[in-house]
């Protein structure tokens, strides 16, 4: 049992709407895994199940050897799972510093809060300059930085990053991925949900390709984009130079 996160035959959905069927995969400690597939194939659902936001309807989710199937999100967080959800991922009505304090108070204890906040501002001086600014008034890129700062200082065992590049300028996307890489250097495992594969494939070791809520392929990340193309455009002979099946 060396896996950090393990999905075993997980099915999940929203009310009657089933988004995942019998999904199994795992992530080793320190490994980066990309979830790839078109919109609506269940990537975000996997991210939500992996962080406890959504309870699977069947199957088990284990983290670090502990069965967390159906546990509340705060238990995942306490076990070391951090989640950067799709879209807005900071508290828009709290100030920058309060956003950090809220999270560090739990993870670092009363005594460690100030040091942790200091560390975050050291890593991201731009945030330190705006520590009293209400987070909702930050730009999209700055908000993403704030979320990253929180995660980097907390040093989770697994970061689930959902569509981090969505709606960001390319230069900011690069910055985000630099930080993800930094996290990896620190031994944090990554589960990256992306529709745009370029960055993800470059960063990750392995990739899971999804189609209609099922895993269709798991393998080395550098072969993923070709698989994905075939998945998306499988009606005709795919690319001129892609290998035949």
């Amino acid at each position: 049992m060396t896996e950090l996160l393990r999905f075993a035959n997980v099915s999940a959905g929203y009310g009657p709407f089933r988004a995942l069927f019998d999904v199994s995969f795992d992530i080793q400690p320190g490994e980066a895994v990309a979830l790839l597939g078109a919109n609506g194939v269940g990537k975000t659902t996997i991210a939500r199940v992996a962080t406890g936001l959504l309870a699977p309807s069947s199957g088990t989710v284990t983290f670090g050897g502990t069965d967390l199937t159906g546990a509340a999100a705060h238990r995942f967080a306490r076990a070391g799972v951090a989640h950067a959800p799709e879209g807005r991922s900071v508290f828009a009505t709290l100030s920058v510093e309060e956003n950090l304090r809220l999270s560090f108070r739990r993870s670092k204890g009363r005594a460690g809060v100030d040091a942790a906040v200091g560390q975050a501002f050291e890593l991201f001086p731009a945030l330190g300059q705006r520590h009293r600014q209400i987070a909702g008034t930050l730009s999209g890129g700055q908000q993403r930085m704030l979320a990253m700062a929180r995660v980097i200082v907390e040093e989770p065992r697994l970061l689930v990053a959902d569509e981090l590049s969505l709606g960001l300028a390319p230069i900011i996307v690069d910055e985000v991925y630099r930080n993800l890489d930094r996290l990896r250097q620190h031994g944090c495992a990554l589960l990256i949900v992306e529709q745009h594969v370029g960055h993800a494939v470059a960063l990750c070791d392995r990739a899971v390709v999804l189609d209609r809520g099922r895993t269709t392929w798991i393998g080395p990340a550098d072969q993923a984009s070709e698989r994905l193309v075939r998945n998306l455009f499988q009606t005709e002979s795919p690319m001129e130079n892609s290998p035949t099946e």
Partner: protein
Amino acid sequence: MTNVLDTQGVSKKFSGIMAVHDLSISVDAGESVGLIGPNGAGKTTFFNCVLGVLRVNAGVVRLAGDDVTEMPVHARARRGIGRTFQRIELFAESTVREHLLIAERTRRRDGGLWKDLIGRGRPRADEIAKCDEVLELLGLRDVADEPIEHLSLGQGRLVEVGRALMTDPKLLLLDEPTSGLDRQETADLAITLRAVQEHRQFAILLVEHDVEFVSSFTQRSYVLDFGQLIASGPTQDVLRDPQVRAAYLGVEEISS
């Protein structure tokens, strides 16, 4: 001949961000047109602009030549736009046939409080016959009296199609009709839809992620990315376009 649907320069902004920018498309009577593109490309937003769920910031939406830009959803529906929903929307605790009956009654517009009170509000024989005809067409005859809670998702989707058909649509907007369906159900849906379309002669505008479904189903397609039209033309050609593939993968070039 006039187009069933014709949009010109449709734009929609959300808090400063252009979700749909200057989009002009047209759909001819009886043809099937695809609307594809990656996540966040603005397909659903555009759909909602056509349906009247959202008001456009700029541009014109014409249905069979008439300007419907300012009309509410139900008025557009009466002028011939039918639709299905990505996350299935059926009437709770009603049977399959009841779904079609209320659509038929709404289309006829001859019901009302006074008719109800004098006992003439119940479904009439000719209405039931017409509904059963459509149910037959969709292969739902066996489950006609089942409450929709007992159906599979694929059947539920067909009920949505049937309900829309009762309004005699000139144009059917299908919003990701295969979402939630497995391969077999998807294939069945394609066969049924094609058969129904042949029989009833209406145009289809299809938003769909399943490229296979789109390419087997539509003659032409429009491709959106970042709210703008990046390609259009025969579906097979469009899907072969490197620019389209790049948009789907979010990288500059993918032919390795």
